């Protein structure tokens, strides 16, 4: 029985020969990730055991990862106390894949997992974060869950009553034009599918454009698959996956990639010509409100943000530095850069990108989620407009319901920083 990538992964993880869309399975979890919201998971975990007479015990502490990223360094006593509580729990339960607020190994959860080799092709990964879909970039089945469900995973080691999702196959061909890249592709796709078009489905990415794409670009695709409602995005593992895991993540044990069977059953197949794409912008206040850059060129921007789990990696920062080198961020516009991890920050320093950006007037902040979710750092004023490489532009997302957020690629963000208005990077800033 031919299967899609996710059907194959779920069959293996559930100890079955076959899993088909619609089947209900209980896959064993290979990795369970949380961030600051582990504080809530800890509460729910304790509650599960209440009155049972059983000692609370994590099924396998080696399979848990906890990364502080959403509010680092803590923006309030409440967050600091939650983080303290999580640190104590981590120590008590012997959780080793813990990334605290540090300049050597900290960063955003969706960057920390890949760069440390915590995610492998074929793995089942759950995370208390909707962008857990990112890890499909390494050929895993990775999806977001809530805190109570995570507490259940900590206790049982399986995800309960998972309905095997149907899969949408996306075939991408053609080479990107200069100034166009993976972010434009996924924005275009979210616009095509709409914000709920892939709800309860998996998006499986194929085609020469995806095969030629670096893991960084694939992370961008899978990261934003959830913006079309997808349970997960997945790029079947290949030579690039193995290269990334060996060279970047330092993995030395055997890597087995999972590819779909010929004749697997897809709900639908979409073909996209990458060569025909122009820079894309998601306009306020929904991610599927996507338009070609031309439609909004000239819109005044008060704050540029480059960073997040979507576009805060070295290639993103390099693209911005290249555009800003020897230039200045326009007066009246501020530019904030958040490298996705401490490691990327160090690499950007070594390559001179941080100096390029700072000389241009950008503020390079500590790695973490920063203004992406509107809790601290980089709040917007009433009526202000942000142009950001992050993944969400919902009303209030950057902390102020009276502001607007446009989403774009690092190239568009950097070119617009120079002019202070939304600018097409192909026409030059």
């Amino acid at each position: 029985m031919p299967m899609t990538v996710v059907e194959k992964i779920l069959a293996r993880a559930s100890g079955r020969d076959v899993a088909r869309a619609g089947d209900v399975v209980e896959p064993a979890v290979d990795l369970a990730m949380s961030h600051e919201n582990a504080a809530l998971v800890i509460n729910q975990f304790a509650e599960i055991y209440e009155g049972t007479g059983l000692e609370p015990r994590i099924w396998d502490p080696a399979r848990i990862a906890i990364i502080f990223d959403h509010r680092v360094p803590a923006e309030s006593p409440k967050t600091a106390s939650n983080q303290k509580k999580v640190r104590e729990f981590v120590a008590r339960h012997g959780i080793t894949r813990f990334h605290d607020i540090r300049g050597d190994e900290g960063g955003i959860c969706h960057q920390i997992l890949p760069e440390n080799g915590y995610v492998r092709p074929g793995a089942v990964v759950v995370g208390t974060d909707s962008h857990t879909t990112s890890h499909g970039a390494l050929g895993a089945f990775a999806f977001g869950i809530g805190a109570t469900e995570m507490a259940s995973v900590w206790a049982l080691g399986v995800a309960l009553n998972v309905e095997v999702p149907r899969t949408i196959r996306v075939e991408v061909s053609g080479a990107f034009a200069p100034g166009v890249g993976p972010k434009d592709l996924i924005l275009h796709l979210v616009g095509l599918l709409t914000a709920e078009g892939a709800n309860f489905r998996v998006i499986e990415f194929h085609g020469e454009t995806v095969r030629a794409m670096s893991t960084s670009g694939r992370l961008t695709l899978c990261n934003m698959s959830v913006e079309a409602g997808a349970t997960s995005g997945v790029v079947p593992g290949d030579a690039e996956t193995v290269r990334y895991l060996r060279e970047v993540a330092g993995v030395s044990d055997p890597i087995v990639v999972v590819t779909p069977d010929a004749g697997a059953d897809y709900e639908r197949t979409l073909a996209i010509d990458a060569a025909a794409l122009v820079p894309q912008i998601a306009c306020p206040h929904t991610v599927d409100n996507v338009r070609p850059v031309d439609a909004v060129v000239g819109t005044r921007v008060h704050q540029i943000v480059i960073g997040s789990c979507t576009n805060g990696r070295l290639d993103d920062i390099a693209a911005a530095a290249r555009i800003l080198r020897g230039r200045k961020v326009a007066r009246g516009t501020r530019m904030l850069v958040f490298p996705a991890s401490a490691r990327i920050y160090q690499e950007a320093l070594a390559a001179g990108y941080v100096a390029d950006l700072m000389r241009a007037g950008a503020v390079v902040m500590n790695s973490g989620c920063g203004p992406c979710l509107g809790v601290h750092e980089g709040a917007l004023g009433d009526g202000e407009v942000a142009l950001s490489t992050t993944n969400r532009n919902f009303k209030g997302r950057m902390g102020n319901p009276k502001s607007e957020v446009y989403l774009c690629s690092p190239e568009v963000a950097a070119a617009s920083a120079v002019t202070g208005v939304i600018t097409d990077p192909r026409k030059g800033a």
Partner: protein
Amino acid sequence: MARVIAKLGDDVSTDVIYPGRYMATVLPTETPQFAFADHAELNALLKSGRAPTGGVIVAGKNFGCGSSREQACSCLKGHELTIVARGFARIFLQNSINLGLDLVTAPDVEAAEGDELEVTADEVVNRTTGHKYATVPLPAARQAIIDAGGLIAYTRQRLLAAR
């Protein structure tokens, strides 16, 4: 019978239901005060206690899209609301089942603020307009969690059974 206390549109995100800046608040006893915090009127109505118990929020497609934050469910459950929508985002739907927040999916539902709704096993009846709307049952696999009284209770049963 339940009264519609608010009518919202499509794609109501978790940033609207429970803004990110309150995410450090996690206890279900504390989250309800921040429900729709940036939607001043609705937030004030919920906090005033004037909203009828078991009141309904009617919404369009993709309610609860966005973040996996469970506060978006616990804050609504704290006000004993039922959400009747044309559709729900996946994680929000799952979180609601896990926590026991009442969701009803009715793809064609039409209702205005102040309408009286009756939710039966397979339809939503708008008593004010007289129209009836078919509902979509929850995925069958989820029923076990609901029957157990939520995911905490269900997981507890599983732990004890495995002992």
